[in-house]
């Protein structure tokens, strides 16, 4: 079977903060990667100081940032058109069917998504759950491996150590470029990381983001 990776996250920047090193490693091996991005992060809060965005102009700004990040990562992008913050209120069944249609067409060998219940943002939890449901709908012999990403504070206590630990040091520069493509989001987030770790931005980012970890989902 032809290798193909599908990344399923709800927000522009989830892919860059969460999995861009892993994505880059796959792309370096010539494996195609497709990103199914749920929303445009319409309800993001960072408007800048001085403000560069409003509630109404933010979606287009984030869409352009997303396109740029996907260029940096050399991965194909599909924007699924849901609205930020509302995914948990959609029909789980319908969202899963929507994702299933993409999976049936792409026939991925690996799906990367959030670990439902351990992904902090309700959209992460809801979209991760729908993604896993979608994979579960596939015939067993076509079913890809799923790597689920947990980010809550308590996940190691409750789930144990993740079995996939990707040290992405070699491709860290690309990861940082992808994060920086999301300028409206990155500045605030990197400042926060720096504040917590008290290091310069590159060291801080590497400490926090140098390893991408996942749990292989057991169906």
């Amino acid at each position, binding site marked *: 079977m032809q290798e193909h990776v599908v990344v399923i996250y709800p927000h522009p920047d989830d892919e860059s903060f969460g999995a861009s090193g892993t994505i880059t490693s796959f792309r370096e091996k010539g494996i195609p990667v497709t990103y199914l991005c749920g929303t445009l992060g319409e*309800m993001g*809060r*960072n*408007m*800048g*100081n*001085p*403000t560069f965005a*409003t*509630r*109404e*102009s933010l*979606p287009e700004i984030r869409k352009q940032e997303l396109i740029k990040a996907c260029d940096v990562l050399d991965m194909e992008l599909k924007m699924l058109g849901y*609205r930020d*913050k509302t995914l948990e209120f959609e029909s789980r069944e319908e969202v899963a069917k929507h994702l299933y249609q993409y999976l049936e067409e792409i026939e991925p060998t690996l799906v990367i998504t959030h670990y439902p219940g351990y992904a*902090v*943002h*309700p959209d992460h939890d809801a979209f991760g759950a729908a993604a896993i449901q979608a994979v579960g709908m596939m015939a067993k012999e076509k079913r890809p491996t799923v790597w689920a990403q947990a980010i*809550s*504070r308590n996940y190691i206590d409750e789930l144990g150590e993740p079995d996939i630990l990707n040290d992405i040091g070699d491709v860290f520069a690309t990861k940082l470029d992808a994060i920086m493509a999301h300028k409206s989001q990155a500045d*605030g987030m990197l*400042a*926060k990381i720096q504040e917590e770790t008290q290091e310069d931005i590159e060291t801080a980012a590497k400490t926090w983001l140098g390893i991408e970890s996942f749990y292989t989902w057991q169906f």
Partner: protein
Amino acid sequence: MDTIKIDQVQKEIDARANKEVYIHLETTNGAYASHFNQEAYNVGAFIRNANVSYARGKIVGAGATYRVGLKLDIGWIYAEGVNQYEIDDEGRLLMAGHDNEGRLMVALQIGEKPFTY
């Protein structure tokens, strides 16, 4: 967005009174508040495209932040803490309050057509 000039914003509010308008009203402290600070508590609410008409609207306050109230036939729309405004390229009145780091805390927007879904 620009710092609110109370007289100008009042004119914009008046210009939209007694018409069918669409309201986006929102307040939030962010979905990650309790992730970054365990003492924090996530709160937020938004209404997008409430279709109303207000007989009177008023902006009150001075200096850093303002309150806006819109009086409806059978109720009120209220926002506290707006400090910036803009008439966007579609003629909508956007008002918002941001913290020092530029994060949105409250927004009240009035448009004559529905906001994009």
